[in-house]
């Protein structure tokens, strides 16, 4: 038992663990839409797109979450602008902006003296650096996002499964789609501190894809995905503590292991 409790003797570990679990659950729930609606590429792009915002906030000692949030919205709007009226296809617009934002972010960060450390914190997260105020911010935003998803469960289900039904029911499909993108952007912003920019996309996709293999209805899929997200965060953080590896990587690798197990289980059972 001691090995379980030992890490929790440190307050920064307690906060880190709480933050990871919250983010794990949040990403896993939003991830069900990412997986079902085929938005994996968008999630990845969104995660990298916030890098310049984070870098600018970092340089000017501003609020990282705020910087990330502004960058995410700016990129989402730019994607809409470039792909409007079919000027270029949406995935092309995403590809261009994703690369541009990543490059701009790295360029900004490379101007700092503590370049290597800062970059790795932003890219891979720094879960042990979560301050009490960060934790409140993460918890508050996550609760707001999850509540919105809960309240809009039916309309989100309809626009994801059957856009034509959404039209006949006169749902404001465009508004709901944009709201979903905003929620996705906020999710990425929230996960910045724990798993970092480059691994947030994995936490959006992997637990949800695992749950997709194990369930056959949307709500159970969300629950199972959340459970896998939470477990991956806890196990990953312990692995990171005992084997002295980067926590974000450990969390994502644990989630990947769950996916492989589910995949194998399904294969063995299916045949």
């Amino acid at each position, binding site marked *: 038992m001691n090995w379980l409790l030992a890490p929790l003797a440190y307050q920064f570990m307690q906060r880190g663990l709480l933050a990871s679990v919250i983010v794990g659950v949040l990403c896993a729930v939003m991830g069900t839409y990412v997986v079902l609606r085929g938005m994996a590429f968008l999630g990845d792009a969104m995660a990298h797109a916030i890098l310049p915002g984070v870098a600018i906030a970092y340089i000017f000692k501003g609020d990282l979450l705020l910087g990330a949030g502004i960058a995410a919205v700016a990129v989402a709007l730019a994607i809409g602008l470039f792909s409007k009226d079919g000027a270029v296809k949406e995935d092309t617009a995403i590809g261009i902006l994703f690369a541009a934002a990543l490059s701009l972010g790295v360029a900004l960060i490379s101007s700092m003296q503590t370049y290597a450390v800062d970059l790795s914190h932003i890219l891979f997260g720094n879960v042990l650096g979560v301050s009490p105020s960060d934790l409140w911010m993460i918890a508050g935003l996550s609760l707001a996002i999850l509540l919105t998803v809960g309240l809009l469960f*039916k*309309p989100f289900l309809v626009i994801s*499964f059957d856009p*034509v*039904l959404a039209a006949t029911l*006169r749902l404001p499909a465009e508004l709901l789609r944009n709201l979903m993108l905003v929620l996705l952007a906020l999710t990425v912003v929230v996960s910045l501190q724990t798993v970092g920019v480059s691994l947030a996309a994995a936490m959006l996709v992997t637990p949800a894809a695992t749950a997709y293999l194990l369930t056959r209805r949307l709500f159970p899929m969300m629950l199972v995905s959340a459970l896998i997200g939470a477990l991956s965060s806890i196990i990953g953080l312990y692995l990171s503590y005992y084997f002295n590896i980067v926590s974000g990587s450990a969390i994502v690798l644990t989630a990947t292991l769950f996916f492989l197990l589910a995949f194998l289980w399904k294969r063995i059972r299916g045949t």
Partner: protein
Amino acid sequence: MTHTPHRLEIENASIGYGEKVVMRDLSFQVPHGARVAVVGPNGAGKSTLFKALVGILPLQSGRILIHGESLGTHKDCVAYIPQREDVDWRFPVTVSDVVMMGRFGQLGWFHRPSKMDKQLVRKSMEQMGIADLAERSIGQLSGGQQQRVFLARAIAQEPHILLMDEPFTGVDVTTQETTLNLLDHLRSQHVTTIVSTHDLNLAASRFDLVLLINHKLIAYGTPREVFVSENLAQAFGNSLLVMENGMMLVDECCPPDEEHHQHAEAK
């Protein structure tokens, strides 16, 4: 003068994508409870017309009125059976989940289904002979069963107008029969049905009215009025063969397949 509005009126509607016009200056009226077959060659704009009627494709000009009011005023009086290839069959929903979606218009965004909603869903599934499949994933069903799920959803929606895009193409005989029986049942409920089909003989024998289109209105009226050689030649060109016993065959081996309609010939 009192005026009873038609169930559905289309006035000078032009429909298309962007600059491209697929359907030009279409006008027709459908009376209360009528059963209309929409026929025309592949790529004639049948699916495009349906998209406009559902409201996912805005009109370039003209207007569509339901009960004398413009499209969108009534929330859930139009139900739509999509073509099978338009549905993501791997989505994690069960048969009863899909049928329950038919109630969402009544329920609004936040209410949970009442006992009455659940009963209605049950009854709709029984009527379509899929009650025993209620907890199955939609991906596990056969093609005909999948179509019956969406028919059950349409019943649960209690629509005034039901649109079906090619319900007789590529389904088994049971489903075809169930669909036709459903059309009879809906007529007794005074539901207006508009069905697109490749099967001209079916259109002639089981429908009150036929809308013959090929990028524009060619003829609209009773099957006897519409299915005359002049109209058919105008719609299908020389790909149509009328047999001596009155059977009609359409040869559409290599159509400009804009609308992903499957090749099908009349019986």
